[in-house]
């Protein structure tokens, strides 16, 4: 069966197409080259005047696993239907559940309604990976995948402290990717989550973890090298030390140098771009951070924009979440030490536009977006739900594309915060082409999804069709059509067919001898059998809905 999408305006940065009017042919779930005249076209969509992009990819969104579920469990009040007033009313799509902790069905539906066809859970605790996959397995409509957290687990820290050679580290990293069915590796507060378990309260880049006598820099070097040597496309995903602390920008700048030029991705960098200037000793360091980002070509980043309203922060960074618990609103917090593997901290949070720090956080995020030169190295995220629910993306896109809208919003902020930001001097407005880079082509390239994020022949036919309209929020909130694997699943912003996406993984080769040390460790210190730590393909696919797409390493 051949489907024709006729006459759309294509924004396909992977093929340098910036508003080119072209036809797209779909067969068997894939985009194909123009067929011969003899081929029968079963269905034609006339897209004259419409904007056509690949399905969007959220490269960092907490959609599954322990801490998200703890947030849901702790916050039943989030599930109530409320009539929201400004500014909260502003951040939602027409069908938005107004909810920072959507259930799995809501997650899939809200994503696809906005034209997103894939989302990646960035913090899978290896020991808890089975839960993450169970939840993602119950998330309809979209493709998914995740990054496994390493660098605070005692097994890795023991290897590093004993000066194990890089090959041993590489084997362990590859083994972990297999065992957890992940596509990338993340490190959260390198060494810090472990340090907190030894009662250390802060950890700087060149400070030793008291027990292991290794530094965050050692950890970053070792893990980024492993990821690179194993040929994993996705660079090491780094949540820096000192999240949320005034003055942390120096840690972030130093972190960029910790890998000696090996690629690293610094995530939710907004939370790591704070200075100490001004009366309140809290200022924007977006200028210093973007200058370094523009210079350091081996570094990519996503922003982690905050938007005003109620949300919840869910992080593996138990050390910093414990420190932030005093800001919880409503006043409750979960902090967990998890299995000599990692940690977890869930702190509900209400960002207020009249609060100096929150207002400045909002401005810092936008300053970062607008000052990074290369849209292929910066990604659109709110670190869902930590900065705001992902349903606020259309609003965020409008802030980036519409200067007067942005400046109007800025003028409503806390006045002291306004005085500390140069946002109104930044005249940049993102183009549709640049938005397509940030949310499609760039994200696919970063993660290594060769068949997603573009509209060329061979691509998975995940396609979003919008009406070009001046109100970019309205435009991106409600696409006319969304195709998932070639099937029309959303019409006029409403789901018309339920489908189940695939799970993207990568499985680099490793020396199976790595299991000698691991099985001894499991036997002695763990509380489960090593074999049960590993998630089989069957566990993801046996229900008949799940599917695994394994990406080759280079």
């Amino acid at each position, binding site marked *: 069966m051949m489907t024709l999408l006729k006459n759309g305006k294509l924004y396909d940065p992977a093929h340098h197409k910036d508003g080119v009017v072209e036809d797209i042919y779909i067969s068997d779930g894939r985009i194909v080259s123009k067929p011969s005249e003899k081929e029968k076209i079963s269905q034609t969509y006339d897209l004259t005047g419409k904007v056509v992009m690949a399905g969007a990819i959220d490269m960092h969104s907490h959609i599954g696993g322990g801490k998200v579920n703890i947030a849901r469990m702790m916050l039943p009040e989030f599930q109530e239907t409320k009539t929201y007033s400004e500014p909260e009313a502003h951040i939602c799509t027409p069908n938005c559940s107004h909810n920072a902790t959507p*259930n799995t069905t809501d997650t899939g539906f809200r994503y696809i309604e906005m034209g997103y066809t894939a989302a990646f859970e960035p913090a899978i605790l290896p*020991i808890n990976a089975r839960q993450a996959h169970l939840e993602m397995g119950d998330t309809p409509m979209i493709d998914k995948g995740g990054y496994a957290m390493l660098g605070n687990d*005692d097994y890795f820290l023991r290897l590093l402290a004993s000066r194990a050679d890089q090959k041993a580290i590489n084997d362990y990293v590859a083994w972990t990717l297999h065992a957890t069915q992940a596509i990338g590796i993340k490190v959260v507060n390198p060494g810090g989550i472990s340090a907190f378990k030894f009662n250390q309260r802060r950890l700087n880049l060149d400070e030793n973890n008291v027990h292991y006598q290794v530094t965050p820099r050692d950890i970053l070097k070792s893990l980024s090298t492993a990821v690179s040597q194993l040929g994993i496309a996705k660079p090491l995903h780094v949540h820096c030390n000192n999240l949320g602390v005034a003055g942390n920008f120096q840690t972030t700048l130093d972190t960029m140098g910790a890998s000696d030029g090996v690629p690293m991705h610094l995530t939710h960098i907004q939370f790591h771009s704070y200075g100490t200037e001004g009366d309140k000793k809290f200022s924007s360091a977006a200028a210093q951070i973007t200058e370094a980002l523009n210079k350091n070509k081996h570094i990519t980043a996503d922003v982690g924009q905050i938007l005003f309203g109620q949300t919840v922060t869910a992080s593996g960074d138990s050390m910093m979440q414990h420190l932030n618990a005093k800001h919880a609103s409503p006043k*409750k917090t*979960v902090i*967990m030490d998890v299995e000599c593997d990692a940690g977890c901290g869930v702190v509900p949070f209400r960002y207020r536009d009249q609060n100096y720090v929150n207002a400045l956080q909002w401005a810092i995020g936008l300053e970062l977006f607008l000052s990074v030169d290369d849209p292929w190295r910066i990604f659109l995220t709110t670190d869902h739900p930590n900065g705001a629910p992902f349903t606020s993306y259309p609003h965020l896109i409008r802030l980036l594309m519409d200067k007067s809208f942005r400046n109007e919003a800025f003028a409503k902020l806390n006045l002291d915060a306004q005085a500390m930001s140069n946002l109104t001097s930044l005249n940049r407005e993102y183009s549709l082409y640049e938005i397509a880079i940030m949310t499609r082509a760039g994200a696919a390239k970063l993660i290594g999804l060769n068949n997603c994020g573009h509209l060329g022949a061979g691509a998975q036919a995940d396609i979003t069709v919008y009406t070009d309209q001046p109100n970019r929020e309205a435009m991106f909130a409600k696409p006319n059509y969304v195709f998932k694997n070639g099937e029309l699943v959303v019409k006029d912003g409403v789901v018309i067919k339920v489908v189940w996406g695939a799970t993207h993984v990568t499985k680099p080769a490793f020396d199976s001898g790595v299991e000698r040390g691991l099985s001894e460790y499991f036997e002695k210190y763990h509380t489960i*059998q090593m*074999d049960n730590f590993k998630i089989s393909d069957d566990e993801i696919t046996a229900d008949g809905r799940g599917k695994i797409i394994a990406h080759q390493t280079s």
Partner: protein
Amino acid sequence: MMSANLRTNQCIATCPACGLLCDDVLLENKQNKLNVLNNNCAKSFAFFAPSLDENLINTTPKIANKPATLQQAIMHAAKLLKQAKQPAFSGLSTDIAGFRAIYHLAQKTNASLQHANAQSMARNIDVLQSAGWQTTTLTEVKNRADVLVCIGSDIVSHHPRFFERFILQDGMFVSAKQREIIFIGENLSLEKLKNDAVEATSLLPCRAADLPEITLVLRALVTGKQLKAITVAGVKVSDLQSIADKLKNAKYAVLAWVAKDLDFAHAELTIQNMTETVVTLNQTTRAGALPLGGSDGDTSANNANTWLSGLALNDTHIEHDCMLWVNSFSADKLPPKTDKPLIVLGNINHRLEQAPDVFIPIATPGLDCSGTLFRVDSAVVLPLKKVRGYHQPTLALPTLSEVVSEIESLL
């Protein structure tokens, strides 16, 4: 334990008989009977080696106590659910796949969901939803806990192997000898609880009814409050002060309880005293709360319900006009009394007091079919194996999700 060393009639299984999900259970098939070889846990033995005496098991579906085919029983169950306006699905003792199926059937039939352990689960959930908590997990306990306080429970009644697996062994950062164990509660015997592997074990006896007051005083003392009273509920304040000091001087103190054992009004406030004690301790040293229990798949049902619906599995008492009761794991659990139509999807070893309108025997995950369960600490999720059938003649029981999806297709 390496599976390579196993004999052909042996396998290593995961035991769902309590919330610890021990996954090192060595089973051997001898003359078509499963034996548990490597531990002496009565719960595990009862789970893996139930009676298969033909006079004692119910492998045949029944309608009004009369044998029926599976298809007839499914059709009758569907008919009863169709007639009902407000069914209640209770028991819910199953694994993730079973719960997913039940959840979807509940959506379709407007049914309320109530786990058999709902009352005790709510004691913990109330604390989580009102103040949050700072918790730890079993591997952390094994490797770090130097002071363990067990409040209102001997733990072993619920988890026979808790001490053997996590406390009486050397951890990465603490040896068994260095640990100190303190019990506070009623009907506990120090003689039974002591073990030479740990040097210091002590008991502070008190009535369960006094735990609210005693935990409140302990919390106050850990916070640094000075008390004028000499005794509280018959316990010397100086004894509680010495426990408070041990907690504050510990490197990694753990406060453990089993919600089911705190069976008195407003037990959630006692639990909150413990969790807030941990919060206070974590301002200066490290500590973790450890809610134990978690039997009959309750942790799994609660987690799955939470991600499927956005809400925890509550303790709801909703009027119903039909009850569907699910019990895969423990044969000795019985459905609540009801005068409404009753459908039982249950264990072959049940001895039901009331003959239900429909009885359908279902496979037990971890015995008759594979499955997935959450451990009590929610951090670890483990696969369950099919062990009966590989090593014995299979009983050919349908899984819960097979039965439920057939019922659903008839609605």
